């Protein structure tokens, strides 16, 4: 390119405040290969883009450098504008003088000098740019949803209703997630099971949805539109095709005393079980760790009693590979517990609350199970230690949340609302009971949310105490709650029958491992990161992967469902096209010089390098060289860095370009 235009943006004042943009434009005009340079207040605005287009036409430009913000922000914008004038979009590049310069410097002189250097670099690169053709790849119109909580269910149903195939992978034996465990839900107090179960059944019956429960993601390969996902279907020990869900096996299993995790270990279940009666699918699994047959080879009762002979002790884990175009991650959350944590963990337990050893100190989800009609007490509020009905219940908010000294600084967002709900459910069931709530402040934004909270206080007579609890200890059959009421400045001590902790919402254990398989990023708490906090809240930075629900951060059901539908809409947008255009920033092998060491093949994280045979006209093999599949190459440049003879280079980032950039300084 020998007639480059340089356009220096003020970004309002974002750049021009620290960088003398006029001087940058003047310096740019004198650079080799630059035919035209100017500055403008907002290059990305409509008049800014028009200015660019006009200049390309008037000055017959063959390359463009826009010195402005990050290419992540506007590279597409300017490439499109350049393309509209007939220019190849890939000869238009951005010089980032905002994030890399004006925002991080104070001295105007020095910042201006640096901005000029950055423009020099990019002009040197554009001079050696090649006119690249966009690469098109086909789109597999089949979505994978990971996690079958309400988020995953909603996303799967939306995508399937739009006519696309969906593969839903759930780790547990049944879909449902946390919502299946809830009793009634704020802000309307409708029964969670009643609104949830129909959706679960819809998933099971939907002709477009393939459901893999008791399954996990083993491996993810490929890229947007063309992922290959291997799913490990754990051995259920029950043949899904044969089982009629009659439940005889569960009734006859002699192992009955296994704590039921679904009921927060309050009830028990047999070794062959479905986690809860409304489970989808309604096919039991054998918990091999607790099954007598698997432990000692004796028993085998379930196999004997099963009419259709569905029990199969020899079943093995099965690996299935699915071709997938888009992925929605909806793996939800875990609840923080006050138990002691490993020494190297940044997150601490609560010694002052007895580290979880006081039986009548429970968490919110345990309370949900107590209040649930299908729970272990049949919906009666009975405390775990002696099964008595508690008359004084203390609820403590922000346990773990907003507690920097415990290692979590964020707000869990849902606890204010569910604690208010808990006080009401309690009052509805124990009319002569009294609920107390220790809280820092009430965070109840949301439609009808504040009204709901006020109702807990004004109509259901919960006593809210603004302050923190410093200690909990057992005294006789009471739990003593020592706290402070900061609104009046006094110490309070309550002898409670039951204490309910609103513990923090945390990322799933192992969320980081899944993220590494998927190649998506996560924050320091292991919540998955969206591509942009405001403008791309459901997209991952990795193309073709979307987020739904609490795996991205604490969320209540309305937010979760909205995000799930948004993620589904993004998938449908992707599936609306048959072909996908992608940036042609891919590696290319110089076959003449490739020595076929295949170091590149070994290091390529995308598996894009193949061995290619070069034959003469008679078909005799002349040599084998490396070859990059442009559809698979992620443009990371690892091969280029590895190749000892530099026989493979990334288009747009060739050694020649990079060296020229260095030399331009």
């Amino acid at each position, binding site marked *: 390119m020998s007639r480059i235009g340089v356009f220096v943006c003020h970004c309002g004042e974002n750049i021009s405040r620290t960088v003398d943009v006029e001087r940058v434009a003047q310096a740019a005009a004198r650079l080799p290969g630059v035919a035209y340079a100017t500055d403008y207040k907002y290059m990305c605005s409509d008049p800014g883009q028009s200015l660019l287009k006009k200049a390309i036409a008037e000055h017959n430009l063959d390359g463009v450098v826009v010195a402005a913000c990050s290419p992540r922000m506007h590279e597409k914008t300017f490439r499109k504008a350049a393309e509209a004038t007939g220019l190849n979009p890939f000869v238009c590049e951005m010089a980032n003088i905002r994030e890399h310069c004006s925002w991080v410097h104070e001295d105007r002189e020095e910042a201006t000098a640096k901005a000029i250097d950055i423009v020099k670099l990019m002009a040197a690169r554009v001079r050696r740019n090649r006119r690249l053709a966009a690469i098109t790849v086909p789109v597999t119109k089949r979505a994978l949803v990971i996690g079958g909580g309400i988020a995953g269910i909603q996303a799967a149903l939306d995508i399937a209703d739009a006519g696309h195939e969906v593969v839903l992978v759930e780790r547990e034996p049944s879909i449902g997630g946390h919502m299946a465990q809830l009793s009634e839900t704020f802000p309307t107090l409708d029964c969670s099971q009643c609104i949830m179960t129909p959706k679960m059944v819809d998933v099971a019956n939907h002709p477009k949805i393939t459901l893999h429960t008791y399954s996990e993601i083993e491996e993810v390969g490929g890229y947007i539109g063309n992922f290959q996902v291997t799913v490990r279907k754990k051995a259920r020990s029950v043949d899904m095709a044969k089982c009629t869900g009659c439940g005889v096996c569960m009734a006859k299993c002699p192992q009955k005393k296994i704590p039921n995790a679904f009921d927060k270990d309050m009830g028990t279940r047999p070794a062959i079980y479905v986690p809860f009666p409304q489970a989808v699918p309604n096919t039991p699994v054998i918990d091999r760790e607790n099954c007598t047959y698997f432990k000692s080879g004796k028993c085998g009762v379930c196999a004997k009693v099963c009419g259709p002979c569905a029990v199969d002790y020899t079943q093995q884990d099965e690996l299935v590979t699915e071709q997938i175009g888009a992925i929605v991650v909806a793996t939800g959350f875990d609840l923080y517990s006050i138990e002691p944590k490993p020494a190297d963990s940044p997150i601490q337990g609560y010694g002052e609350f007895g580290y979880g050893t006081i039986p009548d100190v429970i968490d919110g989800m345990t309370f949900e199970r107590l209040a649930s009609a299908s729970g272990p007490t049949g919906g009666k509020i009975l405390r775990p230690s002696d099964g008595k009905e508690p008359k004084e219940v203390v609820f403590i908010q922000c346990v773990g949340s907003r507690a920097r000294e415990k290692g979590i600084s964020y707000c869990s967002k849902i606890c204010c609302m569910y604690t208010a709900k808990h006080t009401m459910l309690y009052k509805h069931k124990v009319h002569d009971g009294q609920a107390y709530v220790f809280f820092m402040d009430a965070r109840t934004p949301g439609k009808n949310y504040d009204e709901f909270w006020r109702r807990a206080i004004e109509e259901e007579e919960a006593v809210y105490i603004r302050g923190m609890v410093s200690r909990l200890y057992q005294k006789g059959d009471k739990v003593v709650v020592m706290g402070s009421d900061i609104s009046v400045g006094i110490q309070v001590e309550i002898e409670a029958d039951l204490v309910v902790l609103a513990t923090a919402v945390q990322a799933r254990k192992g969320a980081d491992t899944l993220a590494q398989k998927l190649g998506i990023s996560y924050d320091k708490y292991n919540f998955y990161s969206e591509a942009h906090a405001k403008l791309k809240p459901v997209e991952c930075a990795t193309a073709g992967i979307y987020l739904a629900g609490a795996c991205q951060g604490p969320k209540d059901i309305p937010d979760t469902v909205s995000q799930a539908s948004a993620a589904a809409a993004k998938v449908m947008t992707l599936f609306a096209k048959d072909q996908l255009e992608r940036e042609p920033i891919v590696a290319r092998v110089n076959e*003449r010089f490739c*020595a076929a060491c295949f170091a590149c093949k070994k290091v390529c994280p995308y598996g894009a390098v193949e061995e290619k045979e070069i034959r003469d006209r008679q078909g005799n093999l002349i040599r084998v060289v490396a070859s990059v599949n442009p559809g698979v190459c992620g443009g990371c440049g690892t091969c280029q860095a590895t190749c000892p003879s530099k026989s493979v280079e990334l288009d747009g980032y060739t*050694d020649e370009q990079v060296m*020229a950039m260095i030399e331009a300084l």
Partner: protein
Amino acid sequence: MIDLAKKIEAPATIDITAYAGATEAIRAEAAKLLTEGAVAAVIGYIPGRRNGTAIPAIVTSPEKAQELIFSPACVNNLALYLTRAKKEVKGKGRLAVVAKGCDMRALAGLMGESQLKREDVVIIGVACAGVYGSGADRDAPLAEKNIARKCRECRVHAPEGADVVAGSLPPLPEFSPVEAEELARLEAMTPAARWAFWKEHFSRCIRCMACRSLCPFCYCEQCICDRNRPQAVEATPRPAGNMAWHIVRAMHLAGRCAGCAECERACPMDIPLNLLNRKMARELKELYGHEAGLEPKEKGPLNEYREDDDQSFIK
């Protein structure tokens, strides 16, 4: 494995009559392979024109195979002829190669780098007690003063993984460990002194590229040092370019160099190239527990990232 007891009692010179047995065995094996048609050619050594020398040879008939020899003059690493770049050799068909223990390591390295398939080559290993150092007196028996430096501390006298092993080892004397001492001296230097040491050596380099021509791992079709668009390494023998060339050489061979010391032998300027190779090898051994050429490896340590990699050197 070397019998240590034998080593201590052994005389200070090596009885080179043992090499005659190796010669016989190589000739017999080569003739057999060629007669059977199992290979198209055997890469081995024949006597050089001057007395006491040997040169590499590619023999294609059983008669010619009778010219093959093995002696302390057989210094070359014949693995060099098996890289893909040596098309005229590989074009002949299936090959057999005579390999000392140190050469075996290069063969294993080449297999790991897709240059060579194990099934495409018959390896005639030789039990080698040592070879002459460069410029050594070749009339005297092999002893302290004329044995190659690399052979003094050799741990692969008996090659492992060959198809056949020719000859047997004579008793091996203990030699002074000059290589280990040299490496210890290098490591004892301050970084500044070490930099000055290499700078001085590299400044003498005349860029004849003999070291590269003899290295079995320098098989690139075009070396990055010969590229001119863009030029990564200045081609003329001037200090900056010399330094760049030697850094590229050291880095490209790190974790791959088999320690045959052919580069050092070839260098007309007596630059201690193998000292640098050995230093790099030691670093990789300490950092990643990696030793080159003991077996064909899928990935070398510099092409691989593991979470438990030692990263303490990143400061």
